[in-house]
């Protein structure tokens, strides 16, 4: 019977197609694809292996105990060191300092939080910088905030500028 020959040919073609599909799948579908869903499971571990940069304030304490203690007991204690400085990993590598830590002293940086804005919660301490400085006969310059406010302990201190005495602060700001 000649017909069986045809059936075998079709059968063979289908078999080849299936084999090609299987080989193609093996080659093109990544190894862990579909293990937990329609994705490559290995990527979950790759994502986990991404390096951590922000280490939190406790990582600064061993070397900067004084600043840490000052900061921990003052008004800025909710701001982690790395907010105003830079991530731990830009300063320390393999437990050793390899670069200077970034320090932001600009008034602009202070005003990120303390510039008076209508959208800010009213109770949050905020000032119109120019008016606030005018009270003390000062002008808005780059590092002017640090004349009275420490970054780690922002409670107003005697101004370094000797023309403004603590007495005048009291007179100007009764509270």
């Amino acid at each position, binding site marked *: 019977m000649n017909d069986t020959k045809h059936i075998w040919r079709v059968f063979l073609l289908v078999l080849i197609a299936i084999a090609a599909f299987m080989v193609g799948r093996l080659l093109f579908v990544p190894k862990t694809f579909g293990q937990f869903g329609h994705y490559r499971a290995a990527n979950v571990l790759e994502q986990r292996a991404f390096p951590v940069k922000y280490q939190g304030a406790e990582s600064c304490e061993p070397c900067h105990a004084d600043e840490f203690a000052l900061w921990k007991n003052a008004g800025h204690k909710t701001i982690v060191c790395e907010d105003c400085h830079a991530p731990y990993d830009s300063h320390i590598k393999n437990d050793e300092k390899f670069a200077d830590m970034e320090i932001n002293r600009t008034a602009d940086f202070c005003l990120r939080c303390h*510039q008076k804005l209508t959208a800010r919660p009213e109770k949050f301490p905020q000032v119109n910088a120019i008016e606030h400085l005018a009270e003390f006969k000062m002008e808005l310059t780059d590092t002017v905030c640090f004349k009275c406010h420490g970054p780690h302990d922002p409670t107003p201190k005697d101004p370094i500028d000797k023309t403004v005495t603590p007495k005048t602060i009291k007179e100007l700001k009764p509270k």
Partner: protein
Amino acid sequence: MIRRDFVTKGLGGVLTILISRSGIAQALTGDGKTGDTYDWEQHDYAYLIDIAKCIGCAMCVRACKRENNVPDNFVRTWIERYHVLDFNNTIVDSSPNGGLEGFKPLAEGSGANKAFFVPKMCNHCNKSPCEQVCPVGAAYHTKEGVVLVDPKRCIGCGYCIQACPFGCRFLHPTEHVASKCTWCYHRITKGLKPACVLACPRGVRQFGDLKDPNDPVRKILLETPVSVLRPDLLTEPQCFYLHMDKEVR
């Protein structure tokens, strides 16, 4: 020293696992053989944002950028400022760069009846449109409920970027793949908080685990009225908001 050991052992463990297929299941459930006891089946994460506390300092945006090497002119989380002047008259700005450099006073918004900042980020929706449209299985959900992008699978077609109703995704300018917030997956799987949560000085941003019975965020979500962005879209966002105004969209 402990950290170094942790990193070297961890990396070694990851490499050995990558070789064997069955090893991945073990590594993900943290059987301890790899030195990593983190089990992805034991967590279900949620994010909580309290709008009333936000001062718009955008330390979160800054920290996210640095932690995740987010390219210039793109953000994974950003701050929007709303000035509600009248009915149907609200000014929304997020300038510049998602608030990365902080906000300056807005002259037109000075007469606002109410004004507030709204931090935004990927909502890690339970029914995320971005995952559904991905043609290559690059966008996916981990068992903890984190939506991630596999950069090796992504072909950069941008369907997910169009599909996301919250505008949380962008095409990475040099890698040419979709990129987005991962809830700092590399941090949370080590028991750390996402960088934005760590950086927030006001406790606006909180990260919690719904499978942990003592979790404060779980408690708030259970006991306090909370809302989500665009609930009408039925995407089931896992970022929840406290004190959200109707103007927020």
